[in-house]
């Protein structure tokens, strides 16, 4: 375990540790004086190789700063999650649009091919369909029915209920 931590420390010193692992190591470092000593010695080695000089932090360096910052206000900046969410939503929307475009393109392509193959028959169907829709608008019938039965029944026990629902309940 110690060997593993020391190896991570060595990587951390070289900025070769992934941020998540580095954060975890920093938490351990913060709590472990032995690991902090190791960190200081590794730093000393690094400084000697680089510049043949040593200037290592006191063991209580972090604690002293922490103590002095105790009376400082805590920052409470708003969490900027909106842009990230927006990016996600935009990505989803873009994907949906892309799928829709590809699907409609393929559909249009296959329709054109079908029309080209069946030609005259297709034209006949297209001519007949709108006429039926005008003569027998099914949606219109349903809408008329719904509007006609869109009254509310006032009942002491059931309060406001759609009329259709109350009548069906009474039938039961």
């Amino acid at each position, binding site marked *: 375990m110690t060997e593993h931590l*020391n190896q991570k420390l060595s990587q951390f010193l070289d900025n*070769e540790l992934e941020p998540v692992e580095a954060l975890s190591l*920093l938490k351990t*470092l913060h709590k472990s004086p032995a690991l902090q000593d190791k960190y200081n010695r590794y730093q000393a080695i690094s400084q000697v*190789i680089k510049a043949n000089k040593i200037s290592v932090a006191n063991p209580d*360096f972090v604690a002293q700063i*922490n103590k002095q910052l105790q009376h400082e206000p805590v920052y409470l900046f708003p969490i900027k999650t909106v842009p990230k969410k927006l990016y996600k939503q935009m990505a989803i929307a873009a994907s949906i649009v892309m799928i829709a475009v590809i699907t409609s393109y393929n559909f249009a392509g296959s329709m054109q091919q079908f029309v080209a193959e069946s030609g005259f028959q297709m034209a006949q169907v297209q001519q007949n369909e709108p006429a039926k829709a005008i003569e027998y608008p099914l949606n219109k019938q349903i809408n008329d029915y719904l509007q006609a039965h869109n009254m509310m029944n006032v009942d002491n026990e059931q309060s406001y209920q759609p009329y259709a629902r109350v009548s069906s309940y009474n039938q039961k």
Partner: protein
Amino acid sequence: MTRDTKYSEQLDEELVLRVQRGDKSAYDFLVIKYQHRIIQLVNRYIKDPSEAQDVAQEAFIKAYRALADFRGEAAFFTWLYRIAINTAKNYLLSRSRRSANYQVDIQDAEALENAPQLQGLETPERELLNQEIIDAINASIEELPEDMRTAIVLREFEGMSYEEIAEAMDCPVGTVRSRIFRAREAIDNKLNPLLEHGDFYD
């Protein structure tokens, strides 16, 4: 941007965000990460080790107070580096005012930094111990096997990334990682007994 710089900046970004969202302890992590580099930097201006530590602490405190204005336009370390330099220069200026009682323009700090009367000197005992540590480290490096020595020198002296070292040494990145770690451990094993009775930190 190399991978090592990217990792470091990503971590800083995350820690700064945490501090700005109320997690004060995340600032300790930033201090742990940068304490040595900031002390080293301040030491270039102020030679006395204990004074340099105080000024480095002041720089970190100033940086915390200024974090409200940090918007991430520059990398955190660049920003912190500037604060540390200004703190060190201001310290030198205030000290020179105290001793000579004359006004100095802030730009003069650069010239002042090399003036011997403004630089503290280490005690002879401290200098001796430091020299012993430096000699021990250098001797340990000489004793390292060739592959380990090359890997750690390329990393520390040339500042090469693991990937670049792997390419230069014609071996996998994992091998480089292991060689550098084993080199550090070997040097540390020689260094540790020396530090047990010597006072490393005073």
